[in-house]
């Protein structure tokens, strides 16, 4: 009983760690940015009913997030 529960716990921990490493890993800023982008675009699209604004915002904010993350990595590598 104890062995099976510790096995189950290990599997759950391993599963959670896999998803954490996959989605957050060493780029937590991208994870947070995508959640924020979805929130902002949802505000424009779902509540504001502004389709064109949402169409422009989604790729623009994604490019900005990628640029910010690359810039952060560049600064980190320059300090080394």
């Amino acid at each position, binding site marked *: 009983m104890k062995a099976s529960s510790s096995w189950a716990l290990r599997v759950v921990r391993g599963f959670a760690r*896999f998803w954490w490493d*996959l989605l957050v890993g060493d780029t937590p800023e991208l994870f947070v940015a995508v959640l924020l982008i979805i929130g902002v675009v949802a505000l424009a699209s*779902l509540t504001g009913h502004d389709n064109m604004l949402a*169409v422009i915002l989604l790729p623009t904010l994604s490019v900005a997030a990628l640029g910010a993350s690359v810039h952060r990595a560049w600064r980190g590598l*320059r300090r080394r």
Partner: protein
Amino acid sequence: MVMASAVSSNVVVLVGAVFLASAVEMVEALTIVVAVGYTQSWRSALEGSAVALLSLGALVALVGPALVHFPIDVLRLIVGAVLLIFGMQWLRKAILRSTGLKAKHDEDAIYQQTVATLSTGTSSTPRDRMAFVLAFKGVFLEGLEVVIIVLTLGTSARHLSLAALAALAALVVVGVVGVIVARQLSKVPENAMKMTVGVLLVSYGTFFGGEGLKIRWPGGDTMLIVLVAIYAVVTWLFVARLRVLAASEPAVAP
């Protein structure tokens, strides 16, 4: 006519994204299997790989049909968010590599690391068992990423079988090439493939995320091609800008 070309271009982008993403992950898995096979035991390496592939098959059989019954808008929003994160991670790494700020290939490091792990195997862990576990973990974890890409892209685009076929084609191609080149896996143009996959995943992430948020894309599915072009140009601009910065600052570590 326009509708037909939009659908076919959508299919081409889907197949290309799944094939390239699967190939990149499979090259990494193959590197581990080859390292285990050469340095330890081909039998354990192949057994570990076979058990991992069977486990992945069971997982797909379990999760795949359930995903098809998920509400499509919610699925597309979740898939869009995951693909955006995933794609941006790949693009970021590929941009830094193409400017020389990161080492270009993982394969040599993966090979050396696997060999080092096997050579320091403790006496309490039999070598054959360790070889089996390493091969299993390598194939299962890299394969799981392929499964996620196939299931998410396939179900969202309503072409699950086509996505699975593209992944299967990648498995065959990488397997055949792997047998031929074996230890020269670092010759595969990994960074160019990773950058292309990054652009495709971010484009799909934007497209599906937008559909999940009820955005009506101008031009419908054709917008996917426009997004691919936008992200490709932006990536090229980032690489060009960083190369200029790297050239003007000789103190930057290679």
